[in-house]
């Protein structure tokens, strides 16, 4: 029985955050693909509160919430560090990870799946948020230090996935003219071998989001 099991969805950026952390530490694990339309009893037992992926199960004990899992992996396994050593740098990394998860992601979600005015307002807000990131990343290769870390991983959705989602939705928010530093960071990130070799297939993500946008459009189409 695998000591380390990851309940995840291979297309999901949240799942990939954890996989990246495990790979960086060289931890062997069993990946168990979840069907979110038909949640397994293992998932429901392991994450009864949120019933979401990813869930890491280590020695039979479940840990939930992707960035909490990443910190757990950093603290438990030997290998290159994911968070910096210095407490101030760690605070900066955590600050930006939080900024992504709590500010950027909900607003981006509304730009893609919000209706009418809500979506338009969200697009303005999203632009402001990406401008903040763009300012922060001026003269910086990654969020903290010169190697990929915790905050960059928290932002993974806005790297590889964002471009694909924008293609699927037909709505482009992020261009290198508007956000040059952010786009440079995205390229640095995507070219890192630890990341590049472990991304889900582009077509599969494109198909997934096209289907979601179609379903949303069908749901709101006039009868």
């Amino acid at each position, binding site marked *: 029985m695998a000591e380390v099991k990851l309940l995840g969805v291979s297309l999901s950026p949240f799942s990939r955050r954890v996989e990246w952390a495990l790979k960086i530490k060289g931890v062997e694990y069993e990946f168990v693909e979840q069907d979110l339309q038909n949640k397994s009893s293992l998932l429901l037992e392991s994450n009864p509160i949120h019933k979401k992926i990813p869930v890491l199960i280590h020695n039979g004990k479940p840990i939930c919430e992707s960035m909490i899992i990443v*910190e757990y992996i950093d603290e438990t396994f030997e290998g290159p560090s994911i968070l910096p050593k210095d407490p101030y740098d*760690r605070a900066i990394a955590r600050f930006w990870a939080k*900024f992504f998860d709590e500010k950027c992601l909900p607003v981006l979600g509304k730009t893609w799946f919000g209706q009418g005015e809500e979506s338009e307002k969200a697009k303005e807000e999203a632009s402001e948020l990406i401008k903040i990131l763009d300012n922060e990343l001026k003269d910086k290769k990654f969020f903290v230090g010169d190697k990929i870390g915790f905050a960059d991983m928290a932002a993974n959705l806005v790297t590889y996935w964002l471009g694909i989602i924008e293609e699927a939705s037909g709505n482009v928010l992020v261009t290198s003219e508007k956000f040059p530093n952010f786009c440079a960071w995205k390229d640095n990130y995507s070219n890192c071998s630890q990341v590049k070799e472990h991304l889900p297939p582009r077509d599969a993500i494109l198909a997934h989001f096209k289907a979601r946008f179609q379903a949303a459009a069908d749901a709101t189409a006039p009868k």
Partner: protein
Amino acid sequence: MAEELKLHRTWSSPFGLRIVWALHIKGIEYDAIFEDLSQKSPELLQYNPIHKKIPVLVHKGKPICESLVILEYIDETWKEAPLLPQDPYEKAMARFWAKFGEEKLLPSIWSVFTGQGEEKKEALGLAVQNLELLEEQLKEKFFGGEKIGYLDLVFGWLAYLLDVFEEVIDLKLFDAGKFPLLSAWMKNFYDAPEIKEHWPPRDKLVTKFQVLHEKYQTANPPK
């Protein structure tokens, strides 16, 4: 030295209080700067340009923002009287429940405070469910064990604000009979020496929240 450490806070904010308590528990001296949020100081805007919020801890001129990030920074910088558990799994659990507190429990209780009619009833149901989940987590005197820890500081606001909200909205949110463990915890936390000298004056709090409640009532009259 006190001049190396500054805390920007307000007289009443529970987020600021978390840091006050943490610094007290660790025996750390600092200068407190009380902000008026209707007239934010230039220093606050400089130190927290993104969120423009308190608390902000400024250590040797470097700002740290977001109360949970600050708590971890304090714990990693001053090692005496640790706030977070040492064991990585227990630490992950503490972070999980802190996230639950911020993202589920607090908003559900706030929705009861600000809501009207049907919306308020639904919010109350959800808030009670969330409190039940928290009740199940209490295994010892405090969330941190025999002594106050990180999670107690995160949930500390319950021990003084719940009853103020109840008075202002004239609604029993928290039935002590249904939550014997949480009830006992609230009393123990409220009376703990490192905590109790910092409580904001209750009458001032009631006035503040009465004003806020009226604002919500007039902004969103019941349909």
